[in-house]
């Protein structure tokens, strides 16, 4: 990671209007993250403390610092850590057991882990594909879904991604997806 220019201001993202409209801000946030210059911070405004994001952006090397700014709103500054992100738990590797279309041992550590359990269908699938589209070929993503995502599996297959997944004891489904090298179509 390059040395951040000291005077680069944080990129501001205010998702409060989206949240008040009952919308889903995750796509907007991830797009903002993708727009960040190297070393730039992200300043997020939300109507609640966005704890799930801490893990997601933590896995991408951002350190959160949150404060309440009145009216129940929160401001969170995600600053890049100086060092490259460390995989914080080795257990995030692809499950060895379970189903999948990807053989071999060349499974990288997932660079991002998302929890989609509390989303309405088909949002868990949309969210997973949104994040997946931002990965480089060969990078992996881990996602927890409410149940075995059979429409998603079909879509992964047709988009040329590899995956491994298994049902967890609580009935949810954990999948690790390795981004394909191009936009290969199946068949």
């Amino acid at each position, binding site marked *: 990671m390059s040395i951040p220019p000291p005077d680069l201001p944080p990129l501001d993202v205010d998702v409060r209007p989206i949240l008040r409209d009952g919308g889903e801000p995750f796509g907007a946030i991830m797009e903002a993250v993708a727009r960040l210059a190297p070393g730039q911070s992200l300043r997020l405004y939300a109507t609640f403390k966005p704890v799930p994001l801490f893990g997601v952006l933590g896995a991408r090397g951002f350190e959160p610092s949150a404060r309440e700014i009145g009216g129940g709103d929160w401001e969170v500054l995600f600053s890049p850590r100086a060092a490259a992100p460390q995989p914080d738990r080795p257990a995030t590797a692809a499950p060895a057991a379970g189903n999948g279309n990807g053989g071999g041992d060349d499974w990288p550590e997932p660079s991002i882990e998302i929890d989609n359990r509390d989303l309405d269908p088909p949002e868990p699938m949309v969210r997973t594909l949104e994040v997946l589209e931002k990965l480089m070929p060969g990078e992996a993503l881990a996602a927890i879904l409410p149940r075995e995502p059979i429409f998603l599996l079909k879509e992964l*297959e047709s988009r040329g991604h590899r995956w491994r997944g298994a049902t967890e004891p609580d009935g949810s489904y954990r999948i690790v997806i390795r981004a394909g090298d191009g936009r290969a179509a199946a068949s």
Partner: protein
Amino acid sequence: MMGAALSRWTMASFAAALAFLVGAQALMVAGYGFPAADIRAPQTLVVVHMVTIGWLSLLLCGALFQFVPVLVAKPLLHERLVLPSLLLLLAGLVSLLCGFLHLSDRAGIAVMLLALAGVLLPAGFALALFVLGATLWSARPLPLPARFVAVGLACVAATAAFGSLFSLALAGFVARPALLDLHAAGVPVHAAAGFGGWLTFTAVGVSYRLLPMFMLSPDHERATGRVVLYTGGAALALAVVAAPAEALLAGTAVAFHVAGALALVALAAYAADLSHFYRMRKRRVIELNSKSALGAFAGLYLSAVLLLALWATGTISAHAGALVYLVAFGWLTGLGLSQLYKIVPFLTWLECYGPVMGRKPTPRVQDLVVERRDSAWFALYFLGVAAGAGALLAGAPGLFRLASAVTLSATAAIVVELVLVRRLVNVKAALRLPEGTSRPRLFLPPRTETATIGAAR
């Protein structure tokens, strides 16, 4: 498991099913069949089978071809038999209805049509059973909702077997006295297997997955769910197998009463599960499909209360029409319409936006409907059903036709809304058809296989 695709003929079977529902209600408004005619009159048989086979069975078959793979996380096997199955069912139903219409003149044509129906309908159900049964078999051990579907499929086999026997008996091919006795004893069994087993048990099974899925409720298997399966399954076995045997051999009806008691236990346990799903949901504001399903559940439990009341007062045969109406329209049609209101937008969304999801901004599934407008139609529908059941109980055929006009208008409005969903009319123009998508056809499958998923490339 490599995922499952959209079922190609599900929308077409929904379309045919809805056409039969609208047609049957139009006949009811016109005063055709019960209560103007006798409950066993050919006209009544026409309306009843338009509702049970034309509407409810086609609806359920279409839904199962799509949802059995979702329930068991396996692809549908022998998919190429789906269209022949639906065509056989349609042809068999048309023969059956025409055969009923010619019953009174006892002409040779009635014999031929009923005999044809007695072959085509079981063949259509057998193909559907084979496709769904093979898929379930490949996925053993089955999760709870799929086990309900398996019992439902066994019941449709029994229903179709009895139905085939009746139509062959009516056609005069089966004239042996013992079989004709079975015919007389068999009508309640045919109805119990059809309404209780095939339609209700399967719908209950599917509800165990659909309700938690769309309300974000916990859906791990609960002991009460197994109680519903075992007591309900035992009640069906007693009603369909033991009760007719007992009636023929001993002339008593112990098995039928035990079956009734077990069914009540199943209904009570199901009520506990329904209340669990609604109370434990993570989604605070529920959507119209889950809200209007409450009307259907009210229909189910009112039907049970009505059955008990009729049994206690010894008036079951006098009011069987009202009971069947409440089960068919309050419970099964109510649930069918309320779930179609979610399933059609959901499948349409997947068909249209699946290829670009995650790549392009897409509308939400909710954007395909206008719930505020449509909640009125559902309210009107259930009001009409309540009035219709009341009219039948009170012996007021004029009021029944009026109530049927209300349910028909509400149904027609819901059908129009579903057409608007397929046409993406409610989606903002800017989001309607992003590059890489194509407009779904009204009810036919996409022109090529690749158009469903993969059009973006």
